[in-house]
């Protein structure tokens, strides 16, 4: 199902004007998507959240039974093709379902099963493998898991040491090694295991949990996400039939990396949903709790927190669903061939990494401020916000740490710039002229709603200032780029903040132009996103310039880009106050 008329190219947001035209927003979900979203929300509300206490205590068998119930209701079959017992509803729906998992740590068990446990087989499995495993994964008869990390190897996934040796008769590989922190391992029936054939060829295998030689260690004692089982998986001379090699021998890393793009995007959706739950909890509490004779949301500093949380959620949802829409369009346009689909998804590697980083950091901010609004109660076990706080932390670590994802985003940008796949170089002369003259044209189209004109201009100037600073550094660091992580981080931070601002503003433009009854809330949310993220973008830009210049040149360059980027006229306090008023009145995130 195509979601927009024209496919937006990866990283194109940097070099094309803000526009709402070509992308998916939460306001554009169709009836079926909304219904399934509601079904997922109801499932969580009725079946999972009431059992939170038991989930936290890791009651034996509870989470697997909930996964099976989710399977009965269809919530595990979304990405599985119809011919293998699935519903094949596409990434928009699976993103929406991930989004509705909200504050439940069941989300991690569900996500590991449906994404990294199932998708490798969907995308790389042979027909025989798909027939054998997908129908079972789609119903929850089999629970899936993904085993890449090892005690000595995390981010550096190419260096795994688990070995796969072909048996003398050539019918089996013998697997030996240990995989650490494997989600769902306590009850999984199927593991996608990465190992090296002949110590060099990185290869994926489908391994059944019941096979001899498979065992798991003790349940890890974790800070949070008790709804997922996390253990070490031991492989002791496990005989894996050669038919269970997944993909090509020596190409396992491709599976690992390509599936991660989808995993990151879905984690972006899940963390955005979690952030929204944190805001909903905090907004209710800020209404009920009184101090000095008024509800907490009567205080300016609490208003600021609530408004900032709302803008976090807004920006996260905007960029995540924009990316999901673009990725899904590209995937569908690529036709039936799964490898072509993955290449199409890879086009959006930068956006997928941003979705993961921005979503997990927005969530981190929201749970932190959420606890703060609850005061001492927020520190108490009985209050769900304290668990949201604990559960949130892992999201900046798994599916590629946020450091690794920043490296992916910036590294991919430079690689593409060199290949001419993003129009950075061609844009440079005009930008240099603008920056040198210190004046920018009015970027807002004539029909831009008045409330968003300044936001549009700031975002457009930010894009140009970012390209300017990044290309300046690139010229200096090109040969040693890999070793210039601080510069790559400054680049990534500009990519992230700009994508967030651009997505938020474009969504608000769409809401206003389409006459939404919530148009004003959209305007406030987009304005606040820009007012908050512009200083972050500016700091990253200045850091990039500072790193690549010295002395007089540095002073002159900084003065130029600062002057070019300029400052907002709009005052942040009234925006925050009005937005917080809407949050208080609606008892949570203002958009439903």
């Amino acid at each position: 199902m195509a979601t927009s008329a024209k496919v937006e190219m990866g990283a194109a947001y940097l070099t094309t004007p803000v526009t709402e035209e070509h992308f998916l927003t939460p306001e554009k979900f169709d009836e079926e998507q909304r219904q399934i979203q509601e079904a997922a929300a109801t499932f969580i509300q009725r079946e999972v959240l009431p059992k939170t206490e038991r989930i936290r205590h890791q009651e034996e068998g509870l989470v697997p039974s909930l996964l099976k119930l989710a399977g009965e209701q269809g919530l595990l079959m979304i990405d599985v093709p119809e011919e293998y017992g699935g519903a094949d509803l596409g990434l928009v729906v699976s993103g929406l379902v991930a989004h509705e998992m909200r504050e439940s740590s069941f989300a991690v068990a569900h996500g590991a099963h449906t994404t990294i446990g199932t998708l490798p087989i969907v995308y790389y499995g042979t027909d025989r493998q798909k027939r054998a495993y997908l129908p079972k994964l789609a119903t929850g008869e089999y629970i899936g898991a993904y085993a890449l990390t090892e005690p000595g190897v995390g981010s550096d996934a190419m260096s795994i040491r688990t070995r796969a040796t072909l048996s003398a008769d050539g019918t089996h590989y013998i697997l030996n090694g240990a995989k650490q922190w494997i989600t769902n391992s306590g009850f999984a029936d199927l593991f996608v295991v990465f190992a090296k054939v002949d110590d060099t060829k990185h290869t994926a295998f489908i391994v059944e949990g019941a096979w001899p030689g498979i065992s798991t260690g003790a349940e890890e004692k974790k800070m949070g996400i008790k709804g997922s089982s996390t253990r070490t998986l031991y492989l002791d001379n496990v005989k894996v039939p050669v038919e269970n090699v997944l993909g090509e021998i020596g190409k396992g890393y491709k599976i690992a990396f390509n599936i991660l793009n989808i995993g990151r995007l879905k984690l972006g959706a899940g963390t955005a949903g979690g952030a929204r739950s944190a805001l909903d909890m905090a907004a209710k509490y800020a209404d009920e709790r009184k101090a000095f004779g008024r509800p907490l949301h009567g205080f300016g500093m609490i208003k600021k927190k609530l408004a900032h949380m709302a803008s976090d959620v807004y920006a996260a949802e905007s960029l995540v669903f924009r990316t999901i829409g673009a990725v899904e369009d590209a995937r569908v346009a690529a036709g039936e061939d799964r490898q072509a689909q993955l290449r199409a998804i890879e086009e959006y590697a930068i956006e997928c990494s941003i979705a993961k980083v921005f979503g997990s950091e927005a969530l981190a901010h929201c749970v932190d401020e959420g606890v703060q609004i609850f005061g001492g109660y927020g520190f108490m076990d009985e209050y769900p916000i304290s668990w949201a706080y604990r559960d949130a932390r892992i999201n900046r670590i798994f599916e590629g740490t946020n450091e690794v994802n920043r490296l992916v985003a910036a590294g991919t940008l430079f690689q593409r710039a060199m290949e001419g796949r993003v129009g950075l170089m061609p844009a440079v002369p005009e930008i240099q002229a603008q920056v040198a003259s210190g004046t920018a044209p009015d970027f807002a189209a004539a029909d831009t709603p008045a409330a968003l004109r300044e936001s549009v201009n700031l975002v457009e100037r930010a894009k140009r200032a970012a390209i300017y600073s990044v290309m300046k550094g690139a010229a200096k660091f090109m040969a040693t780029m890999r070793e210039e992580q601080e510069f790559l981080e400054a680049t990534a931070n500009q990519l992230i903040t700009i994508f967030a601002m651009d997505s938020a503003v474009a969504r608000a433009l769409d809401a206003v132009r389409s006459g939404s009854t919530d148009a004003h809330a959209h305007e406030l949310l987009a304005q606040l996103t820009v007012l908050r993220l512009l200083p972050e973008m500016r700091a990253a830009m200045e850091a990039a310039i500072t790193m690549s210049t010295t002395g007089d040149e540095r002073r002159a360059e900084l003065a130029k880009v600062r002057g070019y980027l300029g400052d907002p006229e709009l005052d942040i306090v009234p925006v925050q106050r009005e937005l917080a008023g809407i949050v208080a009145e609606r008892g949570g995130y203002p958009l439903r």
Partner: protein
Amino acid sequence: MNIVACIKETPSTTAEKSFGPDMRLERRKEDAIPNPFDEYTIEEALRQQEKHAGSTVTILCMGPATATDTLRKALAMGGDRAVLVSDSALAGSDAIGTARVLAAALQKIGFDLALFGSAAADAYGGVVPSATAEFLGLPLLSYASKLDLSGDSTARIQRAAEIGYNEAEAPLPALVSVVKSINEPRYPSMKGIMASKKKPLDTFSLADLGLDPSSVGGAAARERAISSEKVSTQRKGEMYQGNEGAADRVVAFLIEQKVL
């Protein structure tokens, strides 16, 4: 056994309500949902179907042409097919007009058991089930809090009374209206939603039912809404504070309210 669940499309209970100059509720497509009371109607139909192998469940609705969406939502809970009776001449029908149409539709569909909710969340008239039974000349077992079908020939219900309950029975085919305590409605699962897209949904016009347009709709309506006022939702509360006697006053209040 053929079971028909009659449902109405109503605006969502949380939607902002407004009225036209003739005091008719302005209905917006975006706010339309199956009448919340009818979730119990559908649930009961599905439970009876589960108990009586080989039964079919049809969901019947009289409403605007756009009510197909509402019927799909209802079909997401379950059921085999849906029938929408829709005709421009039906606009403005009163309860009797509605009953006339439902009776004709039920006759055309053919049924052993027709289930109704006890009222609709938008109008609360509660007349339609009995008027439909009257048009059909069939028994109505009203306000059922429990329903048993013995064999394929008799319906027996319990109706909650102030103390205990009454029992009543009627031979099939019969109409039964249900109250909320009869069951706990299921929620539509993703699978149900997917399945609902493929279920047959027929639309009948007045001509299909052989009804004369002048016998239904606004023209024939003899019941009219005259005015509507917003109720203030401000609740009265009493606060007892401090140590002095607050507990005693709470106890006294509870005794007065016959809670204790």
